[in-house]
C-alpha cells in the first residue's frame, strides 16, 4: 500500500476504536469534511487536468525547466554563507536523507519563534540564526532554488496531515479561503471547491492543491513559489495581495496542505 493509500484507509476506518492511536496522530486529518469540501477520494492534482505535453515535461527531469533551479539549489546547499561561514550541508549533511519528507509536513509550528513557518521561512530562519546571513527576499532566485531543492527531497511522498499545534493556523487559513474578497467579491472556495474542472475563460480551474510548489509555470517562464501563485489568484479577484511572507499566506498554505493531506508531492512540478 502506498503512503497515500494508507492514509485514506485510516481515514475511512476512523470510527473504529482500534484506530484510536492513529486518530490521535491524525486528529486534524480526521476532522470531518464540511459541506462544500471536496471528498477525499475525488481530489486530483493540477497535474491530472493539464495537457499531455505539460505532463511529459514534468515527468522528465531533463525536460523540466525547474531542474536548472534544482541544480542551483544543490550548489547553494553546500555553499558557506554568512558570518558563521557555514553551509546548509554543515548542519544537515546529505539533503537526500535529512530533508526527505520535510516539505511534505510544512508549514510547521516553530515554537522558538512562536509562529508557523513555511519552507521559505524556515530557510531564512536558518540563514539568520545559524549562518548569520541576511534573509533572502521572497521570489529571490536563490531562495526559490533552495526551496525547490528541499521540496524535491519529498517528491512522491504523501502530504502529512498537520499536527495538533497547527490547528489554529489551519483554521485561520480556511477562514481566508472561504472569505469573499476583492472587487469581484469571490472566495477561493467558490472557484476551487465549487467550480473546479470548469472553465474560467480558457483555463480549467484546478482544485488548487499546493503539492507541486515551488514549480515552473510556463506563463511565468520561471519557477515561482506557492505564495506567488496565491498572489496571482488574489490579483485575479481584484483583491489586495498580502505582503509576501505574511502570516495570512502561511495560514493559507497550511490550510491548502491540510486540504491536500495524503496527496503526493510533485515538487518541482510544471504547470501551464
Amino acid at each position, binding site marked *: 500500500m502506498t503512503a497515500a493509500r494508507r492514509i485514506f484507509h485510516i481515514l475511512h476506518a476512523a470510527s473504529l476504536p482500534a484506530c484510536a492511536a492513529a486518530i490521535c496522530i491524525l486528529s486534524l486529518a480526521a476532522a470531518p469534511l464540511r459541506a462544500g469540501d471536496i471528498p477525499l477520494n475525488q481530489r486530483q492534482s493540477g497535474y491530472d487536468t493539464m495537457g499531455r505535453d505539460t505532463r511529459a515535461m514534468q515527468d522528465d527531469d531533463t525536460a523540466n525547466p525547474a531542474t536548472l533551479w534544482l541544480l542551483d539549489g544543490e550548489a547553494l546547499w553546500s555553499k558557506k554563507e554568512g558570518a558563521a561561514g557555514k553551509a546548509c550541508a554543515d548542519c544537515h549533511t546529505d539533503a537526500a536523507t535529512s530533508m526527505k519528507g520535510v516539505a511534505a509536513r510544512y508549514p510547521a509550528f516553530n515554537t522558538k519563534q512562536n509562529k508557523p513557518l513555511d519552507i521559505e521561512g524556515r530557510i531564512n530562519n536558518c540563514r539568520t540564526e545559524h549562518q548569520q546571513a541576511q534573509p533572502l527576499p521572497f521570489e529571490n532566485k536563490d531562495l526559490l532554488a533552495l526551496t525547490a531543492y528541499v521540496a524535491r527531497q519529498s517528491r512522491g511522498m504523501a502530504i502529512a496531515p498537520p499536527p495538533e499545534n497547527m490547528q489554529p493556523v489551519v483554521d485561520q487559513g480556511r477562514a481566508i479561503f472561504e*472569505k*469573499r*474578497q*476583492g*472587487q*469581484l*467579491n*469571490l472566495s477561493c472556495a*467558490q*472557484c476551487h471547491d*465549487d*467550480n473546479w474542472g*470548469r*472553465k*474560467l*475563460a*480558457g483555463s480549467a480551474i484546478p482544485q488548487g492543491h499546493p503539492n507541486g510548489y515551488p514549480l515552473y509555470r510556463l506563463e511565468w517562464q520561471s519557477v515561482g513559489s506557492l505564495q506567488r501563485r496565491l498572489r496571482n489568484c*488574489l*490579483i485575479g479577484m*481584484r*483583491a*489586495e*495581495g498580502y505582503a509576501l511572507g505574511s502570516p495570512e499566506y502561511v495560514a493559507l498554505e497550511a490550510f491548502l496542505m491540510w486540504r491536500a493531506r495524503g496527496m503526493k508531492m510533485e515538487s518541482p512540478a510544471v504547470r501551464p
Partner: protein
Amino acid sequence: MNRTPSGLRSHSQKPAGTLVPGLVALLASLAAAQAQDRVKPYAVVREAIPLSLTGKPGDPARGRAIVANRQVGLCLLCHSASIIPEEQFQGDLAPDLAGAGSRWKIGELRLRIVDAGRFNANTIMPAYYKTGGLTRVGSSFAGKPILSAEQIEDVVAYLATLREVKK
C-alpha cells in the same frame, strides 16, 4: 494634482518630450476615473431597475465590445457566448448569453448586471455597480464599480438584442 503641464516643464531643463503629454493624458484619465467612482442611486421595482442609470439608452455595439473584452466586461471569463464566436476563450461557469434578451426584460437585465446577488445571494457573478459591502478590494479598484453607469447601459442595450432564434 493641479500642476499645469507648463508648471511641470519648468522643473526640468530639458523638454520632457513625450512625458508631459503622457502625464496630461494620465491626469485626464484619473479625473475620468474619479467621475465614474460614484455609484449613483437607482430604484429597484419588482426585481428590476426600470430606468436607465444614465437617463439615456445605451449603445448595443459598444455593449458588445464590452462583453467581448475579458479585461473590461469580464463576462466571458464565466459565460460562454455563442453569439460572439470570434472570442476563443470562453468560460463555462455560467449560462450562454445567447437569448438573454428573450429570457429577461430590460429592467431585469439591468438589475442582474448591477447586483446579481439580489437574485441569488451566493452567486459568483460580481455586482458590476456596487462599491459597498466588499472586503480587501485591490487599491487600484477601491471605491470604483466594475463598470460605469454608461458602460452598464451599453451592455444592457446589447443583451436586449439577444433574442432566442425560433427553429
